[in-house]
């Protein structure tokens, strides 16, 4: 009887640690940003190879985008973005590190629930603290995180020359979607 109980205790303990070690990952998250101004050429790019890790027991979240992976429709725009503005040869990575406030994996379901992401964005060699809302859902062991927020170039020391400033919006809308799997 005693051994049975100890076995049961061991089994329960190992089960709970297994559950606690949930790490949800993706290597093909999507980040899209747009800074278009009406009646001018669309300023929009997408990166479909963004990495992200979510630790389900603590709600810690980290994402990394390789800046060269942002693709524009217009080749010249992509070239200017890389060479003049974001300087992707000097700063090839952009990251987010932070936490999802009050995250609880057992509270997730197929219907989207709003959470708050708190952390630091690193871009163009500059760090900025941000707090952005996110919608999170869970379907078949796949956690889907979608975020929408606004960034400004000057917050990351990115200078837009006067001649083109009328063609690029001051607010850059960012949309990110991560489908994280175990």
């Amino acid at each position: 009887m005693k051994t049975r109980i100890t076995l049961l205790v061991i089994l329960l303990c190992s089960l709970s640690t297994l559950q606690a070690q949930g790490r949800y990952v993706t290597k093909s998250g999507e980040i899209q940003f747009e800074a278009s101004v009406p009646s001018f050429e669309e300023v929009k790019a997408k990166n479909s190879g963004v990495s992200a890790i979510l630790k389900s027991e603590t709600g810690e979240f980290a994402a990394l985008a390789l800046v060269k992976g942002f693709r524009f429709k217009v080749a010249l725009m992509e070239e200017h973005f890389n060479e003049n503005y974001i300087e992707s040869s000097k700063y090839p990575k952009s990251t987010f590190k932070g936490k999802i406030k009050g995250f609880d994996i057992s509270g997730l379901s197929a219907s989207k629930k709003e959470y708050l992401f708190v952390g630091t964005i690193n871009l163009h060699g500059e760090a900025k603290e941000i707090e952005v809302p996110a919608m999170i859902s869970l379907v078949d062991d796949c956690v889907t995180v979608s975020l929408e927020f606004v960034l400004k170039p000057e917050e990351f020391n990115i200078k837009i020359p006067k001649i083109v400033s009328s063609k690029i919006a001051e607010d850059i809308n960012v949309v990110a979607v991560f489908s994280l799997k175990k």
Partner: protein
Amino acid sequence: MNKRRRLLLAVLLLLAGGYFAYNYMYKEHRDISSETSKLEISASYLLERYKTNDGDELLNTTITVNGLITQVEEGTVTLDSGVHCSLIDGSVGLVEGSKMTIKGRCIGYDDLFEIVKLDQCTIIK
């Protein structure tokens, strides 16, 4: 007559200028699949180069990488657990364990997963 000629010349110049300006503004994207690769390297050695900080010069260049497929995901394959390739034509029909040679553009090192990433990849064999 002279006036007419001058006008014609001006129109031609304008057209030519417009043509070159348009071509400059709307030039084609790089076609990685038709570029000659700068380097042929095994996937594990490529990862090693990045881990020892010897990969910066490869950023944005077209390279050819060979290795064993260790993971197949939608549109991507991972070679030797260290080089992640996004394929132009998708990953349908590719199987783990087979040997592959892939050409693509190196976009840098991902230190979250400790992998090198390539995009716009095509399969050489």
